[in-house]
C-alpha cells in the first residue's frame, strides 16, 4: 500500500517528462543539428539560419525526389542532431508511457491504492492570502479520470513520435517538429493534471499554441483554392482564432464562477456551487462549455478542424484526433459535478450541441473527396457523440460515458489518421507530388496490406460493428438517449451512426478497394493514380499494428464507468446483447455498411458520378454538402462585413474623434497664437483702452459687489 501510494506521488514525472525533452531538443540536439549543417557557421544571423532551413542545404539537390510542387522543403539526409532529437523525444516519452501504464494497471487492479478524491502531485502556492480572499495556486492533481486520460495521451504521443521518424524523414525542420510535439504533449498533460481553472486555462492556451505551431509547420506551403485548401499558415491562424472565440465564453464562465464562489479549484467549486443561484450557474456552465465548443470543434466553431489537416499527418493524428480536441470533453468531464448542480439546461445544451454537430459533420463527410477531410469531419462527428454522452449521463453514470467513447475513439481515430498518413506517404513517394484526393487512389489493398487491414479494423470499430471497441462505447451512448426518453437525440444519434458507417466504408473502398477487386471489391481493384505505391517502412507500420489492438479490445473494459466515478453501473455483455435497442443500432450500422458497399463496390464510379450530376436536386445537395453547408463562406462574409465593418467604424472614431481632439488641442493653441497676436496693435491708444477698460470693469465689479453686500 505504501509502495502504491509512493507510486502515484511521482506522477509529476510524467507531466514534466515531455517538458524535459522539449528543453533538451531546443537547447541541445536542435542546436547540434543547426550547427552541423554544411556552410553554416555559428555566427550566421537569425535570418540566414531560417533561409537555409527553408531551402535545405545549399548546393545539394533534392536527390531522387525530383520536383515537388508542394513547396515544403526537403532534405536528402538528416543530420545526427536531428535524429538525436527524435530519439530523445521517443526515449523520454517511452519511459513516461510505461510509468503511466503501470499507474493505470495498479489503480485498476488495486482500487484502494489511489484515494477516492485523488492526490496532489505538485503544488505551488503562487499567491496565497488568508481565507476568504482569492488565492492562486498551481496544483497538479491525479485521480482516476486523470489517469485514464494520461494513459491515452502518453500512448498516442509515443506512437506518433515513433511514426514521425518515418513520416518526416525527408522534411526540413525535423528537430523543430519534435520540439513542437513534445511541447504539445506537455501542454496536454497540464490540462490532464490540472486541479483548478487557472491551470487548465494555461494548458488550454498552450495546446492552442502548440496546435498553431504544428499546423503551420510547413511555413512555405501555398494554398490550393481549387481544392478548398488554405495554406498551412492560414489554417494555423484560423485554428487559433476559432479557439480564441470559444475562449471568450470560457473566461466569462470562469469569472462568473470565481466571482460567486471565490475559488478556482474544481474540488472546492463542486461544493460551493450549490450555494449560488441555479440560473446563474447554468449560464456560467454553458459559457464554460463555449470553450469546449471552440477547442473540440463543435458547431459553430468547427471550421478550423478541416483546415487543420494542412498540417503533417502525425500532427493530425495526435492533436486533432486523439488528444487536443478531446480536451474539451475532458474539461466537461472534470467539471461534471458543476454541471450536475446546474439546471438541466446546461446538460441539455451540451447534449444537443453535440448531437447537431454529429449529424452535421456526418452529412458533410458523405461527399468529401479529400482523404484527410473525411477523417476530420468524422472526428467532429465523434466528438459530438462524446458530448451527447456527457450530456445524457447525469449523475448516475457520471462522466465515464463520454470519456469511454473518448478513450476508444483516441485509439481508432489515431489509427485511421496514421494509416491515412501511410497511404499519403507512399503515394508521395510514388508520384513525387502531394496526393490527397481519393479519386486518385483505389485498389491499394494488395499494395499496402498492413495499412489496409489495420484501416479496415479501425473502420469497423468506428462504425460500431459488433464486438469492436466502438460498438461498446457508441452504442451505450445511443441506448442511453433512448432510455432517458430523449427521442430527438436518439433519432439523431442513431441516424448519424448509420451515416458514419457509410462514409467510413466509402473512404476505405475508394482508397483500398474498388469495383473489380477480390472479396467483392473490398481488396484491390483498379488504381486510378500514377506510379507504383508500396507498403511503408516499419517505422510507419508498427504504430498501426500497435494501435489496431486497442481499437478492438479497448471496448472490453466494462468497469470504465465505475473506474471514473465509483458507483456508476458496470457494463455487462449479456445485458447489452439482450437489449433490443442494441440490435437496432447494429442493424443501422450494417445498413450503412451495406449501402456503401453497394454503391462503391457494385456500381461503376463513373456511372454513379454521372447519375448525381444529371439530377439537379442531387447535384445541388452534393455541392451544398461538399462546401460544408457554405459555412466558411458565411463566416468570411460575416468577418468581412460585420467585424471589419465595425473596425472601420472604430477606426473612423479614432481618426476623427480621438485624433480630432488631440489635433484639435494643438490647432487651438495654434489658432490662439495666430489670431491672438492681433491684440498687439502697436498703437498706444488701444493699449490705453485695454488699461482703462479694465479699470472701469473692475470698478463696476467692486462697487456692485460692495453694494450687494458680498465680501465686505
Amino acid at each position, binding site marked *: 500500500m505504501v509502495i502504491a501510494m509512493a507510486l502515484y506521488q511521482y506522477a509529476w514525472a510524467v507531466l514534466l517528462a515531455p517538458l524535459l525533452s522539449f528543453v533538451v531538443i531546443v537547447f541541445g540536439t536542435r542546436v547540434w543539428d543547426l550547427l552541423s549543417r554544411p556552410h553554416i557557421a555559428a555566427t550566421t544571423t537569425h535570418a540566414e539560419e531560417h533561409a537555409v532551413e527553408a531551402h535545405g542545404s545549399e548546393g545539394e539537390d533534392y536527390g531522387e525526389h525530383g520536383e515537388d510542387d508542394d513547396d515544403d522543403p526537403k532534405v536528402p539526409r538528416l543530420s545526427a542532431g536531428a535524429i538525436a532529437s527524435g530519439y530523445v523525444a521517443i526515449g523520454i516519452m517511452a519511459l513516461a508511457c510505461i510509468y503511466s501504464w503501470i499507474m493505470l494497471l495498479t489503480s485498476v487492479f488495486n482500487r484502494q491504492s489511489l484515494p477516492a478524491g485523488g492526490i496532489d502531485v505538485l503544488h505551488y502556492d503562487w499567491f496565497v492570502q488568508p481565507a476568504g480572499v482569492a488565492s492562486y495556486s498551481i496544483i497538479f492533481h491525479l485521480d482516476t479520470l486523470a489517469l485514464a486520460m494520461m494513459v491515452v495521451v502518453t500512448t498516442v504521443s509515443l506512437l506518433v513520435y515513433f511514426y514521425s521518424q518515418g513520416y518526416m524523414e525527408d522534411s526540413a525542420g525535423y528537430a523543430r517538429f519534435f520540439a513542437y510535439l513534445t511541447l504539445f504533449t506537455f501542454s496536454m498533460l497540464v490540462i490532464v493534471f490540472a486541479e483548478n481553472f487557472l491551470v487548465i486555462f494555461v494548458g488550454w492556451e498552450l495546446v492552442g499554441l502548440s496546435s498553431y505551431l504544428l499546423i503551420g509547420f510547413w511555413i512555405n506551403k501555398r494554398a490550393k483554392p481549387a481544392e478548398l485548401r488554405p495554406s498551412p499558415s492560414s489554417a494555423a491562424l484560423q485554428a487559433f482564432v476559432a479557439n480564441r472565440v470559444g475562449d471568450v465564453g470560457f473566461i466569462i464562465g470562469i469569472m462568473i464562477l470565481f466571482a460567486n464562489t471565490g475559488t478556482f479549484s474544481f474540488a472546492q467549486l463542486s461544493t460551493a456551487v450549490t450555494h449560488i443561484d441555479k440560473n446563474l450557474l447554468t449560464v456560467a456552465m454553458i459559457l464554460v462549455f463555449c470553450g469546449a465548443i471552440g477547442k473540440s470543434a463543435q458547431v459553430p466553431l468547427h471550421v478550423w478542424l478541416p483546415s487543420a489537416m494542412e498540417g503533417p499527418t502525425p500532427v493530425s493524428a495526435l492533436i486533432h484526433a486523439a488528444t487536443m480536441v478531446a480536451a474539451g470533453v475532458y474539461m466537461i468531464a472534470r467539471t461534471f459535478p458543476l454541471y450536475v448542480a446546474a439546471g438541466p439546461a446546461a446538460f441539455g445544451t451540451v447534449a444537443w450541441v453535440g448531437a447537431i454537430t454529429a449529424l452535421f459533420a456526418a452529412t458533410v463527410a458523405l461527399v468529401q473527396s479529400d482523404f484527410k477531410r473525411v477523417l476530420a469531419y468524422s472526428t467532429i462527428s465523434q466528438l459530438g457523440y462524446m458530448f451527447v454522452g456527457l450530456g445524457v449521463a447525469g449523475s448516475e453514470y457520471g462522466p465515464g460515458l463520454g470519456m469511454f467513447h473518448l478513450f476508444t475513439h483516441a485509439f481508432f481515430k489515431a489509427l485511421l489518421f496514421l494509416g491515412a498518413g501511410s497511404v499519403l506517404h507512399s503515394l508521395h513517394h510514388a508520384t513525387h507530388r502531394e496526393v490527397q484526393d481519393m479519386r486518385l487512389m483505389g485498389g491499394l489493398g494488395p499494395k499496402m496490406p498492413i495499412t489496409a487491414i489495420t484501416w479496415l479494423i479501425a473502420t469497423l470499430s468506428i462504425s460500431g460493428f459488433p464486438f469492436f471497441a466502438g460498438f461498446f462505447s457508441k452504442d451505450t451512448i445511443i441506448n442511453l438517449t433512448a432510455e432517458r426518453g430523449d427521442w430527438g437525440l436518439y433519432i439523431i444519434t442513431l441516424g448519424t451512426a448509420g451515416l458514419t458507417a457509410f462514409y467510413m466504408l466509402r473512404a476505405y473502398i475508394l482508397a483500398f478497394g474498388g469495383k473489380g477487386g477480390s472479396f467483392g471489391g473490398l481488396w484491390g481493384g483498379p488504381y486510378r493514380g500514377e506510379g507504383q505505391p508500396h507498403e511503408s517502412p516499419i517505422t510507419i507500420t508498427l504504430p498501426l499494428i500497435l494501435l489496431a489492438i486497442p481499437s478492438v479490445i479497448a471496448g472490453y473494459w466494462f468497469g470504465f464507468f465505475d473506474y471514473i466515478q465509483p458507483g456508476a453501473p458496470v457494463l455487462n455483455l449479456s445485458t447489452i446483447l439482450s437489449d433490443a435497442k442494441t440490435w437496432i443500432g447494429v442493424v443501422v450500422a450494417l445498413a450503412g455498411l451495406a449501402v456503401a458497399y453497394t454503391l462503391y463496390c457494385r456500381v461503376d464510379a463513373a456511372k454513379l458520378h454521372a447519375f448525381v450530376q444529371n439530377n439537379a436536386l442531387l447535384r445541388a445537395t452534393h455541392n451544398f454538402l461538399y462546401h460544408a453547408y457554405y459555412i466558411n463562406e458565411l463566416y468570411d462574409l460575416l468577418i468581412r462585413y460585420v467585424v471589419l465593418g465595425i473596425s472601420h467604424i472604430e477606426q473612423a472614431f479614432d481618426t476623427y474623434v480621438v485624433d480630432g481632439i488631440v489635433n484639435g488641442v494643438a490647432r487651438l493653441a495654434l489658432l490662439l497664437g495666430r489670431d491672438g497676436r492681433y491684440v*498687439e496693435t*502697436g498703437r*498706444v*491708444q488701444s493699449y*490705453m483702452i485695454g488699461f482703462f477698460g479694465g479699470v472701469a470693469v473692475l470698478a463696476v465689479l467692486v462697487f456692485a459687489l460692495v453694494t450687494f453686500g458680498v465680501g465686505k
Partner: protein
Amino acid sequence: MGLTLNHFLILGAILFCIGLYGAISKRNAIAVLMGIEIMLNAVNVTMIGFSFFNHVKPYSTYLTGQIFAIFIITVAAAEAAVALAMIIAIYRKRETVDVGEIDIMKW
C-alpha cells in the same frame, strides 16, 4: 446750498473723464497731449479742493494739496515740453502726427 467737497470732486471726475476721452480717441498726437493736460488739471482741482476742506490741525496749515498742485504744474510743464519735442521729432521723420500710424511694435 453751500459749497461742499463733493462739488469739487464731481467736477474733477467729470473733467478727468473728458480728458481721458480726448487722450484715447484723438488721432492727432497734440490733441492727445491736450487731453492729458485736461486730466492733470482735473487732478489739480481735486487736490486743491481737498486742501481747502481740510480742518484737521496741524495738517490743515501745511496746505499739502496746494503744494502738491504746484509740483503737478511743474512736472506737467516739463512733460509737455518733452512731449512736444518728441512730436516734432516724429513729424520730421515720418511726416505725420497721427498716432494711429505709429505702430512699429505691432504683430
